[in-house]
């Protein structure tokens, strides 16, 4: 079929995996996850600062901009462990914003913002619109130049963590081409952000109305390089969401296995019944395959061609594996599974979010078919 697939794992990845595993377990017990769900902000700034102090926001930022100079491969184990504990916060948003800036920002923008992001400044990307298209180049929002300023119009949807972010990178049409423009949150007019109600209550998501906002021309990304941003962000996002979903699959399988090991019916622990044991094993097998794909995608991410193939496969597999595991988790908790108090719903809601962000399994397989067949 194709025997080119490889997987490797660096010492840095191993160190980060171990640190992140302990940190996320300690800092994000499910009681905290549920408490933060109820808060407006949705995450704990003190923990965010600890992550920044650990250097996690600078992992994939080059040294010349104050970062560690590693890559997305090293971000993956961190996000995986966050996903396993359903840790809240703008980590993925900020990482994607930094990636967008790195690939398409002007030198001045990078020099200004990347060092700030590397030390804990929060940023996000505004890419989706009412058309709900996973193709990030399908953009209706506009940035029109008049009087030396860019006048923005249109609405962006599903802008993650926009309320916490100091900077928002917005995709717009400019002079007939897809581009990106940098917004500083303090310049947003009152009411520009509306919090959306989304399936995953641990996440924060906003609509951003651009009408009436104008920014200096220097807010535009580098016209020469901006075309690469959309492909890069699409794949980087698919990779990180895959990591989060892999971790989530592990989390929900552990959660369900614990119940199967303790709950008794008809005088027996229910995990001894094959009607429950076999499907949870299938979920586990699916998770392990997703994890192999994830780390293959991580280690090949920067390779032309192979990076795209591995990442799309990882996203397709992680989405289906997480959704299956979380779906069965609700069912296998019986009556308790139908309640808000059962954590199975947290995972299932997150899997519905993750599977459908940045392309679902069918979408990625279609892209792969066009690439490979």
């Amino acid at each position, binding site marked *: 079929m194709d025997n080119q697939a490889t997987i490797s794992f660096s010492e840095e990845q191993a160190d980060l995996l171990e640190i992140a595993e302990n940190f996320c377990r300690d800092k994000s017990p499910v009681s905290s996850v549920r408490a933060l769900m109820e808060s407006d902000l949705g995450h704990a700034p003190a923990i965010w600062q600890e992550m920044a102090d650990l250097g996690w926001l600078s992992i994939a930022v080059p040294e010349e901009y104050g970062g560690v100079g590693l890559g997305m491969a090293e971000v993956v184990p961190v996000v995986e462990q966050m996903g396993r504990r359903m840790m809240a916060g703008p980590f993925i948003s900020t990482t994607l914003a930094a990636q967008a800036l790195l690939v398409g920002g002007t030198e001045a923008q990078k020099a200004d913002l990347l060092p700030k992001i590397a030390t804990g400044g929060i940023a996000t990307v505004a890419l989706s619109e009412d058309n709900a298209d996973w193709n990030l180049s399908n953009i209706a929002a506009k940035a029109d130049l008049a009087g030396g300023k860019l006048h923005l119009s249109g609405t962006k949807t599903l802008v993650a963590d926009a309320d916490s972010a100091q900077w928002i990178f917005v995709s717009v049409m400019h002079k007939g081409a897809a581009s990106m423009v940098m917004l500083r949150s303090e310049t947003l007019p009152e009411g520009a952000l509306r919090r959306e109600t989304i399936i995953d209550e641990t996440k924060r998501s906003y609509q951003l109305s651009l009408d009436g906002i104008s920014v200096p021309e220097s807010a535009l990304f580098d016209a020469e390089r901006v075309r690469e941003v959309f492909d890069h962000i699409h794949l980087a996002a698919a990779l990180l969401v895959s990591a989060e979903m892999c971790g989530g699959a592990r989390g929900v399988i552990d959660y369900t296995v614990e119940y199967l*090991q303790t709950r008794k019916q008809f005088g027996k622990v229910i995990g001894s019944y094959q009607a429950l*044991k076999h499907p949870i094993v299938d979920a586990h097998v699916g998770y392990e395959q997703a994890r192999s794909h994830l780390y293959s995608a991580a280690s090949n991410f920067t390779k032309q061609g192979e990076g795209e193939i591995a990442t799309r496969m990882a996203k397709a*597999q992680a989405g289906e594996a997480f959704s299956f595991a979380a779906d069965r988790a609700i069912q296998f908790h019986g009556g308790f599974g139908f309640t808000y108090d059962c954590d199975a719903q947290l995972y299932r809601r997150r899997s519905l979010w993750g599977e459908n962000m940045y392309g679902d399994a069918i979408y990625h397989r279609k892209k792969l078919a066009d690439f490979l067949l």
Partner: protein
Amino acid sequence: MTAPSKAELEDYRQDVAAWLQANRPPEPDFMLPLTFMEVGTEAQFDYLRDWQRKCYEAGYVGAGWPTEYGGGGMHQAFQDAASKEMAAQNVPIMLNAIGLNWAGPLLLDIGCHTDRARYLKGILTAEDIWCQGFSEPDHGSDLGNAQTKAVRDADEYVINGSKIWTTHGSFAKYMILLARTDPDAVSKYRGLSFFLAPMHAGGVETVPIRKLTGEHGFTQTFFTDVRISASCLMGEENAGWGVAMRTLEYERGARGGQGNSYTISTPDASRIFDLAKTVQREGKAAVEDPVIRDKLVQFMIEARALSLNNQRQSITPLIQDRPQSLPLQSKLAWTEFILRLNEFAISLQGTKAAYYVGEPDAIDGGLWHRGYLNAFSATIGGGTSQIQRNIIGEHVLNLPKS
């Protein structure tokens, strides 16, 4: 012995690759078995026995076994690399699977010098074919309930009973045999003993079983007052269950030391792409059909996952919390994958899906149909997929026994 470096292994692999390219045997005029379980005719048997001997003489069978027993005396990693390269080149399989990969490693781990000297070289050369006597007509998945009896009589045991699904039963010189030595043991598992039994002893009868494909490949083996030496006992009397379970760990790849683990060739899955290009749907190549494209990519993703799982097993930080997880699921995942892949390949063939082996117009000679039917031998044999799920559930996820 220190493990070889990556560079040393790569050099070795290249030697193996070059040798295989130069020495691959000519295609026979009969269909070659894809797995060691499919050897049904003398012609197939002779062809594969010659091929194993040739590979042994080249040093690529038992490279990791001690030289005093006919092995190559090298680090096991070299043998594993050679086995892997043979799989990659899709050459004919190794015949003497049960000797090479079950009985052999077991003898090396817990056997005495006399037994090793007696048995190991014949395993490597394929001079002595081995078979396995675990399952019984009434005790398949419930292996611990095996009822074939072995009664001690002075310095002999007397065997009575019957074993089934004996791969290579009609060719074998020895059998690894699980038999009941204590019918009154408190636990059924504690009354079993493990023997290295001669198949040419008086009272052993093998009856071929015709498989669902119409071919032969297994026997039922009957024991009527068969007398074997007490020295055939492997391990302590009534401690055979532990030995049998250890044996299954070699089979599942959860323990190393295999003489040559290439005993099952995986169908070249890329052939389903060729198939999808040649058959038609609505006047166009099937590969243009979006649903078929989606399925083809699904198979590709799954095939990759299985290959990546193997690679990940050597990355300690990514497996250390559950080191048995990937090895224990490998058999389940592979065999179910192969079954579904063959099934899909049949469905791709349109009306020609109706043809079977022997029909001159059958696509690929009926390979996919035969492959599909034979694939059940792997989803059932060596512990059914359902038993595999029990094993994974109990040993990896720590769920209570069913």
